[in-house]
């Protein structure tokens, strides 16, 4: 076989390997999820959704877990959305090109790479002990807010920088102040991109387990939380708790709870992708 033929063959061979590599991960994930649905589907029922946790696997439900997850989502949004968008606006519209801006940028890129469990340690000392929040929803959502802040900031900056200069300059030329321009022109135009980023960030927060365990979320909560200062559990922690039990029935519970968690995660990502596509189509500057 001559050299040229060999090269062509290698080329074709790599194409096959490429297709294999591209789909092997997704196929495995599909198999895994199929397995989860297979063992967990029958356990899903209205009772499972509205029952409190129990030592008897068959009577245990995820009421406290999903209400906790909803609370965490709501509080985390309230805390992280204004701070993250505010920081994004500052970096994109106000900051000058100096050492401080440079430091902010290195810092945000660094924070995005800090393991989530480290945020848990930060939350444990600052929110739980120093600010005396205890193992409350507020402490948990404050911790998760810091965790997802870099994602929101980066998304905000990208969305703002995609707004054309001409729009801002037109507004300024008409006599609007800097903030009026941002509030009435830049932010509305960038909102699609910002919301996409926020939803993606929140979907990450919903799946987080380790930082909340470190902050002191409980694995067994016999009541649904009524205020941000209440103790709580969330779906991923409930799943973790059931996975670590030796009895087969709890494994089935865990699979059923995973189905719910995956539905929430995929739905949020779906909404984010839908928003991104719609926003990209609508804004044809």
């Amino acid at each position, binding site marked *: 076989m001559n050299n040229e033929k060999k090269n062509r063959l290698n080329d074709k061979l790599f194409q096959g390997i*490429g297709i294999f590599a591209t789909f092997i991960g997704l196929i495995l994930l599909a198999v895994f999820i199929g397995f989860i649905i297979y063992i967990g589907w029958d356990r899903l029922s209205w009772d499972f959704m509205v029952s409190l946790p129990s030592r008897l696997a068959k009577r245990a439900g995820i009421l406290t877990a999903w209400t906790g997850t909803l609370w965490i989502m709501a509080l985390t949004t309230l805390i992280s959305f204004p701070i993250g968008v505010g920081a994004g606006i500052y970096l994109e519209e106000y900051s000058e090109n100096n050492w401080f801006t440079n430091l902010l940028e290195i810092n945000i890129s660094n924070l995005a790479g800090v393991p989530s469990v480290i945020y848990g340690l*930060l939350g444990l000392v600052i929110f739980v002990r120093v600010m005396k929040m205890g193992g409350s929803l507020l402490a948990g959502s404050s911790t998760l807010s810091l965790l997802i*802040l870099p994602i929101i900031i980066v998304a905000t900056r990208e969305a703002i920088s995609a707004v054309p200069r001409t729009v801002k300059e037109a507004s300024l030329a008409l006599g609007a102040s800097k903030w009026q321009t941002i509030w009435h022109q830049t932010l509305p135009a960038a909102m699609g991109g910002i919301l996409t980023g926020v939803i993606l960030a929140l979907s990450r927060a919903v*799946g987080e387990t380790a930082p909340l365990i470190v902050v002191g979320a409980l*694995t067994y909560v016999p009541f649904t939380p009524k205020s941000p200062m209440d103790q709580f559990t969330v779906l991923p922690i409930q799943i973790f708790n059931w996975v670590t039990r030796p009895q087969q029935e709890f494994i089935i519970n865990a699979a059923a709870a995973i189905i719910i*968690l995956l539905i929430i995660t995929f739905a949020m990502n779906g909404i984010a992708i839908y928003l991104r596509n719609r926003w990209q189509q609508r804004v044809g500057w």
Partner: protein
Amino acid sequence: MKWNEKIIEKLLGFCALITILTTVGIILVLLIQAVSFFQEVSIVDFLTGTQWTPLFAEKHFGILPLLSGTILTTFIAIAVAIPLGLTIAVFLNEYAHHKFRQIVKPMLEILAVVPTVVYGFFALMIVTPFLKTFIPHLSGFNALSPGLVMGIMIIPFVSSLSEDALNAVPNSLRKASYGMGSTRLQTAFRVTVPAASSGIIISVILAFSRAIGETMIVTIAAGQQPNLTFDPTVPIETITAYIVQVSMGDAPHGTIAYKTIFAAGITLFVFTFILNNISYWIREKYQQKYE
């Protein structure tokens, strides 16, 4: 400028400042607790000890077993993610139709979206029993299975960033290579991959950082038993899993067990901090800008 405009600027600046405060907070919290830990345990014992038993009656505080567990699972994950991720990046960039790429790239992101506790379930309930059919002596908890699953999870980190880097290589280089009679494979590995090397290296470093910090998969499926070993078939414990293990047991504030999670935490933070900074530095310094 009106006074309210100035207040708004200050408020927005404060929002940005919170990110700095977060970093300062992390470093201070870890340092203060770790210093208090090292007043009770010598730093030499910590760094060279081969036993980690802070929760037992006879306490040993050698971080090496946790470190070996972390390194072991990390390298298994990397051994999966780097070859697959790079192959995907080259394939999507050089071979695939751009419409195919547009559809497949977001699909791959799904792998990174699934919560890690779910991957932990996969590793423990599906992958370990499956591997047992080939490796009969594989323990129910081991480093191999969570490592492999973690590798699948971080594929998109490698493939996505690497593909972006390959995509930034100007087409003229590619065309020149084809003009010389190269195949797509030769073009990819002799022209575009070397040209995009800084971006690819960044993606590899970030994958390492991600694997080192990954917590729930290893907590669930690796066994929570600190063992100084590089045998992937026996139970081990990573730094991250240890922090979760102690947190589950609610170690009282001020006890040595409580302080150990910060000593473990600062070790973890140092590793990821160095890796993250190297990647940032490469991006600033070597990222070639093609006009």
